[in-house]
């Protein structure tokens, strides 16, 4: 690891970044730090999340963002009051995520003209620092920026100076699933900038939470791949001075696997933090309710939401990101969003004093997922020869890290996941994953069991069946009857 970016160099690049859109001129680090310090502590994401972890409860957070400022504030206030959200989001629109601020501007204008949001999120860069602060001032809980931006430097500058105290993403998790042509080195370096910025705030006494985007492509991602990537982003972040980091995992659907993966992720992350000498990091977890296809029927969607909440609560995730009964239909109404929160709240409350009981299958699952994730991280470190960024770049190029169904051409895309006969996500095609024969045999054996039950060889059709399964009311995809 190369250590923190030199302050002078960082301040130098800031000038270029802030010049890329007029609102950049509004940003001042000193003003940003002072603004955060003047905020009440209950509005600080990192502080509240640490408290949540200490209390052993699972906090709930929605996704939400619309094009117009007042509507966005009204939406967040509604989710805070009606939905009783512990943490609020500001989801950024897809044009801003691609730094297409001109198009975002057009989206704001069209939204004004049409009287409804024509963007799928809040274009924070176009609004600038002061409208962001208006959001923070109008609500009573911490607010996080959630997006999918490979180059989020300006977005981070503006929103953090604007009082947001948590920033989701990472050089891998906001590139591979969110871009097609962005080289990994570029996105990782841009995210090192973001992490350095957060490190700067930390140096000046302001704690900003960083969260990795666990779900990646959202569908059938084998947990060990998520864990490996999360750990790499954690190391990149803490290297730049990030002090509050949240590891993320998307629900797969098999309870035992989901709980084992969440616990295994934390154990392995702590191991790596210790190994690289980072001692003062607040490590927390976020669990995402199922990110793949949802049933269109709302009653069925509530079931999927509840099942995600059950896994989060039993695993004692510190936070759960909530889906809505409109999931299959696109961006939800505020009422549907609050309903998802209420269902989730009821579950996490009813389950807060219950825990997942340790059993042999769980221990095996956790052992295997750690073994797999460790193999990926270790090989990546080797490939880097002391340069983590280079290691990650090479690992992706070689398929040592490989995310299924990713749009990025910098992802090899040779692995194929499928569910086994218990619904746990296994690996059908290993591509170039650095797995030993024990691991491979484990996956093969589990998939074989399913193949035998269904009387078919595992194939791409099986994968497709799995992708559609939850939307059709199952977990393990059934062979289609022709």
């Amino acid at each position, binding site marked *: 690891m190369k250590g923190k970016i030199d302050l002078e160099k960082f301040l130098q690049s800031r000038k270029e970044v802030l010049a890329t859109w007029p609102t950049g001129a509004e940003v001042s680090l000193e003003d940003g730090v002072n603004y955060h310090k003047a905020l009440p502590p209950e509005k600080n994401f990192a502080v509240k999340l640490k408290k949540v972890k200490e209390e052993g409860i699972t906090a709930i957070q929605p996704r939400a963002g619309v094009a117009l400022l007042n509507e966005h504030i009204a939406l967040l206030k509604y989710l805070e009051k009606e939905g009783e959200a512990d943490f609020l989001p500001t989801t950024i629109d897809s044009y801003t995520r691609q730094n297409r601020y001109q198009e975002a501007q057009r989206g704001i204008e069209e939204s004004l003209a049409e009287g*409804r949001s024509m963007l799928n999120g809040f274009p924070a860069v176009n609004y600038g620092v002061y409208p962001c602060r208006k959001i923070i001032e109008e609500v009573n809980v911490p607010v996080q920026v959630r997006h999918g931006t490979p180059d989020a430097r300006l977005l981070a500058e503006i929103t953090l100076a604007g009082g947001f105290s948590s920033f989701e993403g990472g050089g891998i998790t906001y590139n591979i699933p969110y*871009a097609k042509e962005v080289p990994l080195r570029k996105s990782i370096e841009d995210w090192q900038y973001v992490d350095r910025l957060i490190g700067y705030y930390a140096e000046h006494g302001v704690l900003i939470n960083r969260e990795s985007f666990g779900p990646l492509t959202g569908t059938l991602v084998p947990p060990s791949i998520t864990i490996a990537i999360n750990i790499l982003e954690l190391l990149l972040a803490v290297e730049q001075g990030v002090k509050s980091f949240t590891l993320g995992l998307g629900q797969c659907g098999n309870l035992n696997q989901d709980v084992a993966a969440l616990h295994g992720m934390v154990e392995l992350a702590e191991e790596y933090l210790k190994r690289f000498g980072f001692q003062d990091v607040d490590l927390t977890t976020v669990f995402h309710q199922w990110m793949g296809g949802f049933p269109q029927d709302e009653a069925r969607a509530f079931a999927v939401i509840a099942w995600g909440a059950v896994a989060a609560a039993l695993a004692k995730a510190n936070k759960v990101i909530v889906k809505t009964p409109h999931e299959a239909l*696109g961006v939800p109404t505020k009422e549907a969003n609050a309903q998802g929160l209420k269902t989730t709240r009821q579950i996490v409350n009813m389950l807060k004093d219950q825990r997942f009981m340790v059993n042999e299958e769980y221990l095996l699952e956790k052992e295997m997922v750690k073994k797999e994730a460790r193999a990926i991280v270790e090989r990546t470190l080797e490939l880097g020869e002391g340069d983590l960024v280079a290691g990650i770049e090479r690992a992706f190029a070689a398929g040592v890290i490989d995310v299924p169904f990713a749009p990025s051409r910098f992802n090899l895309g040779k692995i194929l996941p499928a569910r086994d006969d218990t619904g746990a996500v296994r690996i059908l095609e290993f591509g170039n994953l650095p797995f030993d024969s024990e691991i491979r045999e484990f996956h093969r054996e589990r998939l074989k069991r399913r193949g035998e039950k269904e009387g078919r060889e595992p194939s791409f059709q099986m994968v497709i069946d799995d992708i559609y399964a939850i939307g059709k009311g199952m977990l393990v995809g059934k062979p289609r009857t022709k």
Partner: protein
Amino acid sequence: MKEVNLVLGVIGADVHAIGNKILEYALTNAGFKVHNLGVMVSQEEFVKAALETDAKAVLVSSLYGHGEIDCRGLKEKFIEAGLDDVLLYVGGNLVVGKQDFSEVERKFKAMGFDRVFPPGTMPEEAIKALKEDLGLI
């Protein structure tokens, strides 16, 4: 079935890749020659690919809600390029928020699309529509 070229892609700044990959697989399996442009495809790229491949149909997906902005003017570009006869399909989560689908369909048909598919459409339905519209049944 003689070779029928199709162009496939996800329009705009949209990176939803999974449905695109499945659609490619299903259309290929159904006997079409699929030219898949993947995600984040501009209007110009759709026109160019349709010209180059002599496509009989272009299937545009949009999953992230910006479909309305992204698709506006696409049919005009096809007409300009002399591709008046190429079938234009669109499908996915086309607008932000829950809207009555018949309203969405009306809107996109007015924009020049021949077929508009709601969220959750299975590949089989698109294939059936293609075969009907291309007289392949």
